[in-house]
Structures are given as C-alpha cells and as structure tokens.
C-alpha cells in the first residue's frame, strides 16, 4: 500500500465535489431540463396525430407563416444595422460613442412590454400619428408592420453586441492596409472586413433569429391578438393555453422548443469550432 498519494491542494475534497455536483445537476435538471421535457410530453400526451393536427390547423399555420415572415423581415434589417453600428463604434472615434453603445444595449434591459408600448404610443389610435394614419387608412398597430417594428426593436442589439468587441479587437490595421493599396470602401468591406467577422456575424444572426421568432411580450402588446391574422406562434400558444386547449398549446410550443434546441446546437457548434473567431465573452 502506498499511503503517500499526492493530493493536489487545489482540488476540493471528494465529499464537497459530490455534494456540489449533485446540487448543480439537480438545479439544472429541475429548472432547465424538466420544463423542456414537460413541453414535449404534454404535446404528445394525446398521441402524435393530435399534436400533428394541432400544428396543421389553419390558425396554427397562419401563426407559423406570420412568425416566419416577421423574422424574414426583421433579421436582415437588423443584420445590416448591426454591421453598420458595429463598424461605426469599432472603427471610428466620435463624440457620444458611449451614448450610442448604451442605446444599442437598451432593449436588453427594457421590459418587452415597454418596448411594445412605445410603438402603441406613436402609432396607436390615440398615439401621436394615430389620427393621421387612420385618415390614410394605414394600419400599423394590430397589424403586420407593428409586429415587425416591435420585433426589430427587441432584437437589434444581438448582431451589434456580438460584432462590437470582435471588430474592436481586430482593430483597423487591415482596413488601412487595403485602402492604402487602393481598395474602395466596398472592396475593403467585402474582401477584408466581412471575411474576418463572418462567424461572429452568423452567431449574432442565430441569436437574433431565435429571439425574433420567440418574442412574446413586445409583440403581444402591438398585435391585438386577431386569431388567424395577427397571432404569431408564441401568441397562438397563449391563446390556446388560455382556452384550455393544452395539447394544442403544447404542440405549437414544442415547435418553438425544437427551434430553441436547434439554435443551442448550432450555437455550441460555432463556439466549439470557431471559438477564436467569435467574441470571447458572451452574455446573451
């Protein structure tokens, strides 16, 4: 028997290890895994056919279409905004830069309900532009444009937040070299900047899209809940749940949960494969 086994002084003792591991796993199981399991098990509690019917009935299909359409408009706009905002913040010095970055962060700390509320106050019937919009018969609140606006508001920080630290780290040496060799602004952007940030950009777009498709609070304030017309998938889930149609609610919810799982898988893959090419610190 060798009783002088070296014990690393920075290792926790075995009891502490086991207790901490069990506590951590129990917490994750209870708070993260169990809700996920519940969604799928409730969706399939009346069999696969019932879940499939709930997803393919006309109101559900229209909600799915609206969600996809909203994301298809909001995500590309925020992609362009995110790149140009990050470009401005990372590559140029100007007055009020910290105000700009604070504004970019704002949607992360503002309640989603307040995000929706501000648009109702501008475009709603009793809002600033309400009477004028009504005169010309333009509907923004309780219609697609309002839903898109609210979605853009809550999701615009994702791409910019991802790119700002990345582009700041990269500095502007390569761009300056390209320009001094006679490249135009466009050439510099597409041949030098974009290849450097492509994985970070993809990462930001991924998170932006997940939030755009899943946003609930802001969209629920501006949508008006017109079934089959202005209900996105998360709103449709709410309507079904409040109607006590639990199987249908969880069936539609399980589609959104699948979207979340795919997002997490792609996100982990990007973090693992391109760790050096996406920003080091991720908060969101």
């Amino acid at each position, binding site marked *: 028997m060798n009783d002088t086994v070296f014990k690393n002084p920075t290792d926790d003792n075995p009891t502490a290890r086991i207790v901490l591991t069990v506590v951590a796993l129990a917490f994750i199981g209870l708070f993260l895994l169990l809700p996920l399991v519940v969604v799928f098990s409730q969706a399939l509690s009346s069999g696969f056919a019932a879940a499939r019917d709930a997803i393919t009935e006309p109101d559900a299909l229209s909600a799915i279409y609206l969600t996809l359409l909203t994301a298809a408009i909001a995500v590309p706009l925020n992609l*362009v905004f995110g790149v140009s905002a990050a470009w401005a913040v990372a590559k140029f010095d100007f007055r009020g830069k910290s105000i700009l970055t604070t504004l970019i962060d704002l949607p992360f700390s503002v309640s*989603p309900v307040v995000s929706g509320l501000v648009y109702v106050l501008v475009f709603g019937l009793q809002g600033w532009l309400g009477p004028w919009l009504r005169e010309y018969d333009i509907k923004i609140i309780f219609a697609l444009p309002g839903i898109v606006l609210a979605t853009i508001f809550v999701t615009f920080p994702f791409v910019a937040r991802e790119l700002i630290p990345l582009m700041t780290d990269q500095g502007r040496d390569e761009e300056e070299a390209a320009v001094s060799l006679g490249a135009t602004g466009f050439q510099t952007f597409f041949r030098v900047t974009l290849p450097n940030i492509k994985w970070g950009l993809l990462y930001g777009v991924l998170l932006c899209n997940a939030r755009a498709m*899943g946003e609930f609070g802001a969209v629920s304030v501006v949508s008006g809940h017109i079934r089959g017309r202005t209900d996105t998938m998360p709103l449709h889930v709410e309507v079904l749940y409040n109607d006590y149609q639990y199987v249908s609610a969880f069936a539609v919810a399980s589609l959104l949960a699948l979207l979340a799982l795919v997002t997490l898988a792609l996100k982990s893959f990007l973090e693992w494969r391109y760790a050096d090419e996406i920003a080091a610190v991720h908060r969101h």
Partner: protein
Amino acid sequence: MGFTLFYLSALVLIPLTALVIRPWELGFSGFWDVVTAPRTLAALKLSFGGAAIAAAINAVFGLIVAWVLVRYRIPGRRLIDALVDLPFALPTAVAGIALSALYANNGWLGAPLAALGIKVAYTPIGVVLALVFIGLPFVVRTLEPVLSDMGREAEEAAATLGASRFQTFTRVILPALTPALLTGTALAFARAVGEYGSVIFIAGNLPMISEIAPLLIVIKLQEYDYAGAAAIGVVMLAISFVMLFALNALQSWMATRR
C-alpha cells in the same frame, strides 16, 4: 454611420420620447396618482422584490453550477453547458406554460408540493420561480470565463501557507469572483424586473398579490388608459437606465480587476 443614427432615432429615440412625454397629459399630480396607486405599488413591489429574490437565488446556484462546469470533469459536461443557455433560446411563452403545467396543483411537481401544503402556481412563489429560470444563464455565463481564466497559483499559495480549503474559498477565490458575480446577478435582476412572458402563466395575476408591473401596463392599454400605461412604463424605463449605468460601472470595475 448615418444609417446607424437614422435607424436608432427612428426605432428607439422617437418612440422613447413618445413614452416619456405621454404621462404628463395627466399633469404631475395625475402621474403621481397612477404611480402611487396601491395596485401599481403592489405590482412594482412584486416585480422588483421577486427579481431581487430570484437574482439572489441565481447568485448562489449559478456560482455552484459555474464552479462544477469549469472545475470538475463530469460526463456530458458540454451538453449540460449548452443546456444552461436554454432560457435565452426558449421563447418565454413556452417557458411560461411549461412551468405553469409543472407546478399547477395537478402537475408533476405541483401535486407533491400541494400535498406538503405548498402552493407554487398562482402565488408570488411561482413568479420568483419563473424569474429564477430566465436569470440563471446570466450568472453562469458571466462567471465561467472569469473562473477558467483564473489560475490556480493563488489557491496553491494559500494552501502552502496552511489555509484550509474553506478559507481559500472565502478569502482567495470569492474576492476574485466578486465583480463577475455581481455583474451576472445584476444582469439577471435587470432581465427579471421587466420579464413578462414566462411569468404571466404561472402567476395567476391576482391584483395586489401576484400581478407584475409589465402586466399592469398591458391591462391599462387594454382599457385604453394610454397615459396610465405610459406612466408605469416611464417608471420602469427610468429604473432600466439606472440599472444600465450601474452595470456599465460594474463592468469597468470588473475590467480593471482582471
């Protein structure tokens, strides 16, 4: 540059101005009446108190989860680590109905808890629970990089000087982690204060008891009380700004400590 400014002003500044101006059509006393009405105060108290309790719970368990994920080699670590981000990716309405189904009186966890006489769904406990769910990743994700960058030299030095493991933890490790822990907790708190989707299903939304401030805004909007809704919105926005500046200060402190 011009595009950035245009986009920000059109989407953020103008609507925010509308929000800040709107409540004053009630006059200052009208604004004050809305904000200090017992129902509003109860809702604000629940939103802030619940968020504070949830953030404190997350600070403790988030630290344990981050410690285990960074320091121990456990099977499936990568999978568990990915799962921590679930509350970021899962739409809040889905989280809301899932938690509500779990903790309802006939739910998987609600039934045994009800047998013990603990009611979770439709009480403030349910609100806190939902806020713990959405806040957890903020603490874990802020701590993880700091923990893995932190070398073991200081701990080794403490051990050679005769410190017990517990002393090393409280005197060496915890002080080094404090800025990150505070930042993560503050992020979780900021997110929880305004949270809507995951809370309203499990809360039961009884006025004065389990009604959160964002829901009160929605109710006022449905009653076409735009000014009243905006008044509560302004209060929440002001607090968001305070939180943002506090967070920026915390983060620059964290940067100087690293």
